[in-house]
């Protein structure tokens, strides 16, 4: 009671404080309003749709869904697939990161780039390439080995595609973790007489364990939410929950069951996400070092080094093979039958499917800057201003990270189908969906950079006579620019490659390239799908290049420390 009173007093003081600053008050209210409408409300709709039948509260829909063995199988499969992908993916990611961070193998930059490619391309490219390589008319199975009925659909193929798609996420996380562990610790252990294996086992690995754990959990959430790979590869004998929810709605027109499946998908995703965020990520070790140190690279024996090099090379070969296959497929006459080169697939894309290209670009280009700016504003408010509900604002805006796209997509069609917010089929529903799904990255990088910026830098500006608006404009904002652009690149890539939520929201008027690729794959036109994918990846690479160029042009002078984020 006493605490509550104090909280009330503090809140009322804070409210009194921000009402003195009308712009701030307006910003806070607007952001709260839009977070509630576009993040919380659709989620609530998913819940209510699955526990209300015919206006009555009941658990019948959930009961029906749970008692259906096919859906239960989907749930188990999803969990098992998530668990295996995350463990294998994190393992491969760790080896890759360890090799690049701790040895002096050649072609490090090349390996790094190879690992980045799957992150910036549509998440189902792996699945497509696998079908083209190992499917019925696959280049390797039927072309090279002469096997005609190799079963790639189902568990094996999907696991392979998921690991290739998601190990780069683990690699990026773990590279950061390993680089923050000072190599002098390993050198010290080595110097004290530990064998190389012991140094790894007693120093490197224990220090990296929290990072590995959080990589596993992140991968689990992402695999569980993934939609593209299972839709192509899972097949009917190996059902996956996210695909089931989609088919239930688009195939059976059964919205309540779809929502119930989404709800069942949501529970493990959210719990694992928060386990990662609030428990594992807190267990990080911080190694304090005076001066930046350079690894002596002596802690890995030459033999181990070359084994790791061979491992990375093999992985790089597999990834290159996938992209090479897509590229070849885009120029092949009829994949698997006549692989000679032609431009027909591109002609097809430009004549039949070009609207999807422009639609995707328009939506990505409009939603990206909005998500970026909104992310920066929320980061600034959360870190630098005091107002009641500050934590709740951060929490809600980060929620989209944890919620599978399928759930969000279903939530959006449930929430925005009727007036006053009848947005189904419009440009707006896709754009808003992207904006609110991709603000968390901007917020995260904005928060990170603001926490690094010493508040006295802003105080110095105020002290020298600048008011709060001028300080934000001339000091805080320029310092946030690199974070803004890295958030921008991320949300652009995501908007271009998104499928799981968007597939529910597209219409004849507004279609997306990813959805087009999917339907081409489903109707067996692998060549057209490949051509679409090549164009998509091409656009993304071009956009990244342009953003980099702009950044260099305007902030190149301060390149040194400013651009390294």
């Amino acid at each position, binding site marked *: 009671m006493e605490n509550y009173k104090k909280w009330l007093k503090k809140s009322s003081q804070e409210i009194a404080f921000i009402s003195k600053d009308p712009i701030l008050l307006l910003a806070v209210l607007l952001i709260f309003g839009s977070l509630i409408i576009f993040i919380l409300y659709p989620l609530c709709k998913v819940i209510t749709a699955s526990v209300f039948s015919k206006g009555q509260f009941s658990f019948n829909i959930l009961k029906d869904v749970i008692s259906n063995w096919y859906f239960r199988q989907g749930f188990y499969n999803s969990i098992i697939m998530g668990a295996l992908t995350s463990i294998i993916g994190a393992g491969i990611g760790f080896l890759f990161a360890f090799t690049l961070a701790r040895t002096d193998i050649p072609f490090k930059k090349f390996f790094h780039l190879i690992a980045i490619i799957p992150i910036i391309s549509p998440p189902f490219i792996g699945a497509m390439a696998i079908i083209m390589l190992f499917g019925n008319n696959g280049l390797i199975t039927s072309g090279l080995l002469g096997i005609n009925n190799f079963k790639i659909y189902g568990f094996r193929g999907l696991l392979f595609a998921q690991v290739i798609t998601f190990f780069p996420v683990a690699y990026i996380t773990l590279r950061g973790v390993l680089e923050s562990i000072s190599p002098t610790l390993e050198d010290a252990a080595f110097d004290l007489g530990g064998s190389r294996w012991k140094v790894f086992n007693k120093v490197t690995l224990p220090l990296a364990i929290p990072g590995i754990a959080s990589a596993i959990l992140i991968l689990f959430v992402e695999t569980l939410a993934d939609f593209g790979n299972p839709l192509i590869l899972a097949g009917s004998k190996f059902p996956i929950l996210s695909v089931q929810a989609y088919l239930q709605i688009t195939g059976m027109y059964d919205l309540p069951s779809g929502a119930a499946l989404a709800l069942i998908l949501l529970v493990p995703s959210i719990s694992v996400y928060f386990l990662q965020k609030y428990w594992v990520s807190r267990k990080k070790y911080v190694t304090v070092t005076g001066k930046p140190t350079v690894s002596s690279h002596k802690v890995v024996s030459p033999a181990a080094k070359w084994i790791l090099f061979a491992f990375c090379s093999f992985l790089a070969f597999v990834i290159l093979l996938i992209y090479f296959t897509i590229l070849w497929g885009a120029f092949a006459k009829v994949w698997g039958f006549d692989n000679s080169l032609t431009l027909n697939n591109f002609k097809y894309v430009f004549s039949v499917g070009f609207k999807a290209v422009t639609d995707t670009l328009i939506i990505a280009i409009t939603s990206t800057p909005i998500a970026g700016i909104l992310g920066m504003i929320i980061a600034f408010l959360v870190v630098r201003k005091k107002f009641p509900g500050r934590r709740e604002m951060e929490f809600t805006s980060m929620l989209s990270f944890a919620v599978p796209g399928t759930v969000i997509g279903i939530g959006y069609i449930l929430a925005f189908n009727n007036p006053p917010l009848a947005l189904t089929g419009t440009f707006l529903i896709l754009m808003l969906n992207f904006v609110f799904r991709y603000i968390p990255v901007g917020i995260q990088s904005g928060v990170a950079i603001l926490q690094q910026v010493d508040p006295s*830098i802003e*105080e110095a500006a105020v*002290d*020298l006579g600048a008011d709060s608006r001028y300080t934000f404009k001339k000091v805080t904002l*320029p310092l946030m620019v690199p974070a803004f652009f890295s958030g921008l690149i991320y949300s652009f890539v995501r908007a271009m490659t998104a499928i799981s939520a968007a597939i529910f929201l597209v219409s004849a008027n507004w279609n997306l390239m990813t959805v087009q690729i999917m339907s081409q794959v489903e109707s067996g036109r692998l060549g057209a799908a490949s051509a679409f994918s090549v164009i998509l990846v091409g656009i993304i690479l071009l956009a990244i290049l342009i953003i980099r160029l702009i950044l260099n042009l305007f902030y190149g002078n301060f390149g040194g420390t400013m651009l390294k984020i």
Partner: protein
Amino acid sequence: MSVKLVNISKIFKGQGNDQKEVEAVKDVNLEVKEGEMVTLLGPSGCGKTTTLRIVSGFETPSTGEVWISGKMVNNIPPNKRDTSMVFQSYAIFPHLSVAQNIGFSLELKGWGKNKIEKEVRRIMKIMEFSELYNRRPDQLSGGQQQRVALARAVINKPSVLLFDEPLSNLDAKLRVQMRMEIRKIQQTFGITSIYVTHDQEEALTISDRIVVMNEGKIMQAATPIEIYSYPKNMFVADFIGRVNFIPGKIIEKKENTLLIDFGIYQKEIKCRYGDFKVNESVIIVVRPESLKMSSANKKDPHCIQGEINKLVYLGPTIEYEIEVKGLSRKIFAVIYNPIEEGFFKVEDLVNIDFKPIAAHILSQKDKE
């Protein structure tokens, strides 16, 4: 251009669940005269930085008034106050060049480009670092960043310059050099300054006046010589330099002096602060370098006698730790020019004496 603090207190509301209130500054009264350099000195958590931030406007006092140049400024935000701060972390804007950093406040005032450049170059010439004009902050050493921060603060010709432990991030050698430079710039421009530090040597060398603070209160405000020679209380005596506290008893009051009994001998010592009664127990403050030592063979009733416990030879000086019967604290003596004064060994019995002028009386109650 003076600064006046009247009955300033600052209570911080507690963070977290216990919500404990902390009184960081308690009823501080201070006047800084025009052109004066005043140092706030004290251990960490004594309220010195809070006091400084109250002057700059970054903290609002819970009670009391802040006056700058004869105007009450309590309700004036930091950007409207005529003060400039040099931050502990320098707070150089990382996205601006050295010249843009220094010219920041002039740009705010709406000066033209050429005029700003001329003024920035002028100030950099006075401070002798013109060659850094086009540099970026990440190409500067600690000392250079410090100079940029100082130039940025003085270019605006503020009424008051505030320093928040500006040298604590520099290495020892650079600290000595920079404090001379800060003092030179402050005197060149004649800017009223408040300087926060926990380094007593820094305070003694650069200040016109030192304000020693502890637990939010001012312990003593005086010139460096007064602070060191005649500390007002045991806290100040102990905080600045090293000190010996020798207990005694007043046996007679004279016009300006008191006759003190040390048990086996008596001394007449001048009284500077406070009102003492006959028979009152007092503490005599004597600095280690004021002590004279001699071999204890000749029994001298006018001296304290003790046995040497420990000695440290430093070349120009020898430091002795001497155990005296009946004293709980060991006597600490620094002997300069030991070649002439003689060398003693551990376990030697010695006589310790001091001249009355080097001693100073404090009340025993005056623990603060």
